[in-house]
């Protein structure tokens, strides 16, 4: 960790020198942004002020809804006016107030002097344009260049962001690129004309831990090399400690704390900041049970599953091995963490266990009984194997009220209606929502509350095995901590066996007794949590552990 910190300190001293001489690149003063009438508050952002000096990185931190993205969009002139617009304050960029500029003046600045990287790399690129063409557009919008020179500079830019085989990539379409590669293209695009300000709106939130670490490193390197200023928006204090010089913490539209990154991380003043920092899973391994329960709830033996895509009657499709001889077992009250990057097959294994996906070979034993595959498995399990889904917005039927949603499962299993409804109310209380929630529709709840409802729905079936597929990765860090606590509570209370699928080793460390690390459909490492985290055997596990963004060194182990 010291190796990471050292160059950090260099830039800090360098930027301090710069700070004394240079004018701020960006100076936001008393910015108010109005929300449309009928919103949950009048102003999305209220009285926000901060300055960003050349060669520095400023992190704006806050939960979703805190107004942090609004500031970025206001700077770029991307607010959906007139519904949402700045009503007071100034945004000074190199001394000119961006709020006073008209559209064509702004357009001249965008791309050339200010670049922006968005959260969702999968949708930020036009799927029917080659990578090269998309980057060319930036040149065409701002200057005249010969075709050969354009190509040269684009190739150089692609090399700069560490993309392999730029000659081939420049003529590829976006669908050939992974999420991390697309984000690199977006960064190349934003940096093409060497802007003096780069705005990054949660650029790594949609990425895996390992990819996130690479992208963060890339952005840090580029920023240092070019000496530009970066405004980095995130909800994750782990990311902050990796990249920030200064931090601005926002809560419901107001800046509650600001200061140098080290200062804020080590000695947070505002209770909200403390709460955000405390919510980061620290990855401390869970203490295992004294004696394991003798009952094996789940045994998976040599599970194999291959996806075939794009085939037709006469042509063999492309085969993707999602599970390759996967084996593990789980006792009552225990939790197994399935950890891996996206595409490692961990979700597929989860879907095979609950019977949402058929598998080709291998055995799944539930309480010692051999289960068939796919729909037949669901029949045999009689609802005693349940799942909590990743996306809380897609997992509840928007047209059904919460009460009937919870009661539908037991009713389908033959429980009388009145009894099922009574149980639904009990469960809502158990997961921390009032009984009045039963009469409401899903859209009236926040993401965290919906995930609680998802847990309640699974519990309504009185399951013995719960498969949780990335249940907290769509949630903010502080909400994530609460939902994880709820998982731990219901596990103790109902003696549940749980398969916990996640890409985040910190979360797995807190939640699980055992961890199985998956890579390309294979379990590459399997063992007790403390063992795996402390003494990883497989190089891939080590990569995963190294990629975890950590809070900067605590005072005691600072050099």
């Amino acid at each position: 960790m010291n190796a990471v910190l050292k160059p950090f300190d260099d830039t800090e001293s360098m930027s301090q020198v710069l700070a004394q001489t240079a004018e701020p690149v960006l100076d936001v003063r008393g910015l108010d942004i109005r929300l449309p009438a009928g919103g949950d508050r009048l102003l999305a952002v209220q009285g926000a002020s901060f300055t960003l000096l050349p060669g520095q990185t400023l992190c704006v931190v806050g939960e979703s809804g805190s107004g942090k993205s609004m500031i970025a969009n206001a700077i770029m002139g991307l607010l959906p006016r007139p519904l949402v617009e700045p009503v007071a304050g100034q945004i000074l960029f190199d001394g000119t107030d961006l709020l006073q500029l008209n559209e064509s003046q702004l357009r001249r600045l965008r791309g050339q002097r200010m670049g922006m990287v968005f959260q969702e790399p999968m949708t930020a690129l036009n799927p029917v344009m080659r990578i090269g063409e998309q980057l060319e557009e930036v040149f065409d919008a701002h200057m005249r260049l010969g075709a050969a020179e354009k190509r040269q500079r684009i190739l150089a830019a692609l090399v700069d962001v560490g993309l392999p085989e730029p000659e081939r990539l420049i003529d590829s379409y976006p669908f050939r690129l992974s999420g991390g590669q697309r984000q690199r293209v977006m960064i190349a695009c934003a940096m093409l004309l060497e802007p003096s300000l780069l705005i990054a709106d949660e650029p790594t939130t949609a990425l895996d831990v390992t990819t996130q670490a690479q992208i963060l490193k890339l952005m840090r390197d580029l920023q240092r090399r070019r000496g530009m200023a970066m405004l980095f928006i995130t909800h994750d204090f782990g990311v902050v400690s990796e990249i920030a010089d200064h931090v601005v913490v926002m809560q419901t539209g107001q800046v509650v704390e600001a200061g140098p990154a080290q200062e804020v991380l080590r000695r947070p003043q505002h209770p909200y900041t403390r709460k955000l920092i405390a919510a980061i899973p620290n990855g401390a391994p869970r203490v295992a049970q004294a004696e394991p329960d003798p009952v094996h709830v789940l045994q998976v033996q040599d599970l194999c599953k291959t996806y075939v895509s794009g085939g037709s009657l006469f042509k063999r499709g492309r085969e993707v091995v999602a599970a390759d001889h996967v084996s593990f077992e789980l006792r009552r009250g225990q939790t197994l963490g399935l950890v891996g990057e996206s595409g490692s097959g961990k979700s597929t294994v989860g879907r095979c266990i609950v019977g949402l996906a058929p598998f080709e070979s291998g055995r799944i034993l539930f309480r010692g009984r051999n289960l068939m595959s796919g729909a037949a498995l669901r029949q045999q399990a009689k609802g005693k194997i349940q799942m909590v889904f990743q996306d809380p917005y897609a997992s509840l039927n928007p047209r059904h009220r919460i009460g009937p949603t919870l009661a539908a499962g037991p009713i389908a299993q033959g429980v009388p209606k009145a009894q099922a409804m009574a149980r639904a109310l009990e469960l809502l209380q158990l997961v921390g929502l009032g009984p009045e929630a039963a009469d409401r529709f899903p859209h009236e709840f926040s993401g965290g509350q919906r995930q609680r409802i998802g847990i309640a729905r699974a519990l309504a079936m009185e399951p013995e095995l719960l498969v949780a597929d990335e249940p907290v990765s769509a949630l903010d860090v502080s909400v994530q901590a609460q939902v994880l606590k709820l998982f731990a509570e219901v596990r103790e209370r109902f003696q549940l066996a749980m398969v916990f699928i996640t890409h985040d080793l910190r979360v797995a460390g807190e939640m699980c007794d055992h961890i199985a690390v998956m890579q390309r459909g294979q379990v590459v490492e399997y063992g007790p949590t403390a063992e795996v985290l402390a003494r990883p055997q497989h190089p891939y596990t080590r990569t995963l552990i190294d990629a975890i963004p950590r809070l900067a060194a605590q005072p005691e182990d600072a050099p």
Partner: protein
Amino acid sequence: MSLPSKNSFWRRYRRNRGAVFGLVVLLLVALLVAFGPLLASHDPWDMVEQPFLQPGQTAGFALGTDTMGRDILSGIVMGARISLLIGVVSTVVSLLIGVTIGALAGYFGRWVDATLMRFTELFQAIPSFALAIVLVAIFEPSVKSIVVAISLVSWPPVARLVRGEFLTLRQRDFVAAAQLAGQSTPRIILTQILPNAASPIVVMASLMVATAILLESSLSFLGLGDPNQMSWGYMVGAARTVLRQAWWMAVFPGVAILLTVLALNLVGEGLNDGLNARLDGRT
């Protein structure tokens, strides 16, 4: 608790002025169907006055008479009845066919989907009006056969639409959750997926009523209408030969067709706005 969502539906619907106009016209047509006979008490087939009476020429015949001395106002009132009846019933029938086929194809996918969609394409490959003419000509022209013909030619777009909706909706996690809870397949299709596909179906249905009315008018214009029922299309068709001497015989039923079809289209657009919560300005 469902009240706010209803309110916001009305708020969005009302924002579309044309849709409000369409709704008013449709209500007038409905009133005409209900209370029209009080207004025009003649049998539309009876020769009650001398032919070629201009509108307003004789008291009691506000829209004049046709070539045979029949009251045009009575014809329009009775025609509204038959137009709406055929429009609504044939839409309901084609919705039943289209939603069933589309839902099965979209939910089960694979060979079920392939088979049903090839079957659908069979119907789509034949020009629908030509098929309708052939069908009515084979059966005897009657209200029943016209409804059957119109339904048979207008269900394929519904099936396509519903299939598309089902293909995406069945991937949603709440469907997986219902499967895990052990809910039966028909139950999942009817209670989990179909309500979520309802908005585009409702919008399409309102447009289909308009198309069905036009189809019925076109069939009657060609003389393939029910010979026992006065219809707008038949009136326009019969007046065609004397268009230059007696404009009113074709214009009034023509305007009736135009207004009703226009109103239905506007209402369809309004429903689209109303059911599409994203138009609210915030997502």
